[in-house]
């Protein structure tokens, strides 16, 4: 009985949370659920945010890319002359991801203890009454060495607007590819090609990330009904068939922007 898996993230807290939830609590094998569904659940959460959080979005893209890559390894036809370096690199990335997930889980569990301590501690209120007035007169004058100018500068300090937090985007300056751009490229190329293999579509690309992003773009176009996908044989090439209008305006493409790094 085929049952689509629904990703539920009621109190979602970032990609690690989502992954931990999926793998540990739901005992889901990530290879057997649709990446598109995780993406969807994620996008829903991102839309709930008041402002787009670049850190969260890019972090997600990174993890999604790793997952896609892991999936591709199982999906794409095997190469006799498979590059062992690539192979090791993939293992490394996977291990890195697992290490980060373990770290995240460690502190999640530690936080529960802090929560318990906190809940216990708030049951007691500290005595803060301080000195009886009879000792006040011998208490040292706290204003020693403070003059009117100090009061004025303290006032100005207090009234100066606090700096607004800015989200740093330094770390993403070298991400040259976005899913939106990849979609636009595909929309330009695919109607002319009619039917093409994914291998062919990516043969000119060098960077792994670019290939991953192209794969995401293909999934996106499939989701929106502009292409059909066919894989005639297990591990065979994936074929992409353009079924949209031959004169398609990329502006009509809906809802891909959120992927953008």
């Amino acid at each position, binding site marked *: 009985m*085929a*049952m689509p*898996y629904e990703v539920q993230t009621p109190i979602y*807290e970032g990609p*690690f949370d989502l992954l931990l939830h*999926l*793998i540990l609590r739901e*005992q889901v094998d*990530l*290879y*057997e659920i*649709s*990446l*598109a569904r995780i993406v969807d659940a994620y996008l829903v959460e991102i839309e709930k945010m008041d402002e787009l*959080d670049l*850190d*969260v979005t890019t972090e997600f893209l990174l*993890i999604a890319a790793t*997952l896609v890559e*892991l999936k591709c*390894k*199982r*999906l794409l*036809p*095997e190469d006799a002359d498979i590059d062992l370096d690539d192979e090791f690199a993939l*293992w490394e990335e*996977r291990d890195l991801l697992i290490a*980060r*997930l*373990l770290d995240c*889980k*460690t*502190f*999640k*569990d*530690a*936080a*529960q*203890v*802090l929560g318990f*301590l*906190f809940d216990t*501690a*708030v*049951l*007691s*209120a*500290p*005595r*803060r*009454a*301080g000195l009886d007035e009879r000792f006040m007169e011998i208490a040292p004058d706290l204003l020693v060495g403070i003059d009117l100018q100090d009061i004025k500068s303290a006032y100005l300090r207090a009234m100066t607007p606090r700096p607004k*937090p800015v*989200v740093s985007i330094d770390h993403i300056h070298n991400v040259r590819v976005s899913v939106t751009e990849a979609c636009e490229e595909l929309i330009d190329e695919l109607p002319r090609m009619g039917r093409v293999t994914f291998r062919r579509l990516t043969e000119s690309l060098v960077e792994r990330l670019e290939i991953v992003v192209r794969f995401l773009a293909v999934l996106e176009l*499939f989701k929106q009904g502009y292409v059909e996908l066919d*894989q005639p*044989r*297990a*591990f065979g090439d*994936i074929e992409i068939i353009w079924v949209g209008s031959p004169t398609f305006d990329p502006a009509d493409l809906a809802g891909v922007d959120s992927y953008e790094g």
Partner: protein
Amino acid sequence: MSVEMKRALEAIVMVADSPLESEMLAEITELGVDKVDALLTELAAEYAAQVRGFQLVRVAGGWRYQSHPDQSPYVERFVLDGQSAKLSAAALETLAIVAYKQPISRAQIAAIRGVSVDGVVRTIEQRGYIGEVARDPGPGQAVLFGTTPAFLERMGIDSLSDLPAIADFVPGADVVEALEHGLRVEVVIDPTLAGSETSADDRPSLGDLLDGDQSA
């Protein structure tokens, strides 16, 4: 003599508005630090034996009087200073990371939590639970955070060493295994080259990947 010194300690701690360190109490009473701690421990035991509605406790490196936890329903009706406002799960996790890994930068916290932490760091910093303790000597001079005495006070603990060891929380082999299984890399290099019908069932088809159908 001990009785007289206990009375002195009771009087001083009573008028303090924050936890008093044993060292300071020792200086005022001209007793040894160990003696001070011993006397205060005796006092705390007396109050407990007499089932007082208050306690003498050691918190954040000092001694203070506080209401007994089982009287919180009454005290809550009276004290409404917002101090007991709940901490969010995100705030607790961030506090846990700072508590165990201090000094630590915002970026390092974010790397562990996998999300942007600017907002939550600001919140717990404003509450006074964490503060800047140093600057990263590297380029950028990132602010490094650590927990404050207010954090210890709020958690009701005397020092960071009262927290359970972080090793206690490192996930067990079962979790590691589950993660490895969930994220396994399964590339079989077949020298005779691919296409064996036999293994096809083990692998997800493109359809599975796209619509998430999981025939199990």
